[in-house]
């Protein structure tokens, strides 16, 4: 995904990452003990981490539930990895307004769902392999739209060091 051509947006995304890192749910997750097959769940108000890029169209804002499940250790790419499954779905009857400042376009985002499979080194916790799927949809400029992104992230061992 390109990040160029929109520096204000990069700054807002950067701020969003910081807000996310400081979110109470993140701190809960860091200190949680993940047991095999028992999902860790938490609710988050998207405006807290994605605002002001995305703002709720209805108040009070409904929380989006996130779930992380540790399914145990799997063999992947010739090694052993800890498999984490993550998922989130926008609550029913919830929508957000997405603003693109430079073009003055506003679009409604009324569906969001995502799933990912994350394979971590079981001892050092860095990602070995990841599969992410994000699906969104809504209405913009009078037209219905959907967007789906599938991402495969692979550790390049040859270009990595110290692991």
């Amino acid at each position, binding site marked *: *995904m*390109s*990040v*160029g*051509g929109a520096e204000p947006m*990069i700054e807002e*995304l*950067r701020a*969003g*990452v*910081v807000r*996310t*890192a400081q*979110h109470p749910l*993140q701190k809960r*997750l*860091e200190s949680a003990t993940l047991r095999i097959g028992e999902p860790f769940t938490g609710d988050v108000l*998207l405006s807290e*981490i*994605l605002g002001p*890029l*995305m703002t709720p169209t209805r108040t009070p804002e409904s929380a*989006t539930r*996130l779930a*992380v499940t540790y399914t145990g250790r799997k063999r992947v790419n010739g090694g052993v990895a800890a498999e984490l499954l*993550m998922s*989130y779905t926008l609550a029913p009857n919830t929508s957000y307004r*997405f603003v693109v400042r430079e073009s003055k*376009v506003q*679009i409604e985002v009324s569906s*969001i769902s*995502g799933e*990912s499979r*994350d394979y*971590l080194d079981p001892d*050092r*916790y*860095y*990602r070995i392999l*990841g599969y*992410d799927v*994000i699906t*969104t949809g809504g209405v*913009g400029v009078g*037209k*219905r*739209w*959907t*967007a789906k*992104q*599938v*991402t*495969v*992230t*692979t*550790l390049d061992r040859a*270009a*990595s060091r*110290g*692991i």
Partner: protein
Amino acid sequence: MALDRSILQRVLLTVGLGLAAACATASASFRWPDGAVLSYVIETSIETAVAERVKTTRERQRFRMSLMGSVVSGVRRVRIAFDDVDIADALLVKTVISRTSSCRSAAPSP
């Protein structure tokens, strides 16, 4: 006013980055030894549909996190780059990203 596909990609980027970070357990939790570099190849397929007109694009990019040393005891500075363009420094305290700062404003064109 057109519903530009780059806008929809931007929605995906925003949602994906925000919510993925909300569940982040990977690299931010990595116990960084001196000189450590994590380099990833990211292959992305994006399908957008506007009023039944479907378009698919594919991208391949590189993501790199490099340890730039310790700031103070227990705090590590990690440089983040996309496609060899440094975009930010992150200060990692234990397993938490405590603050990010702009490293270089230059960024690749979409």
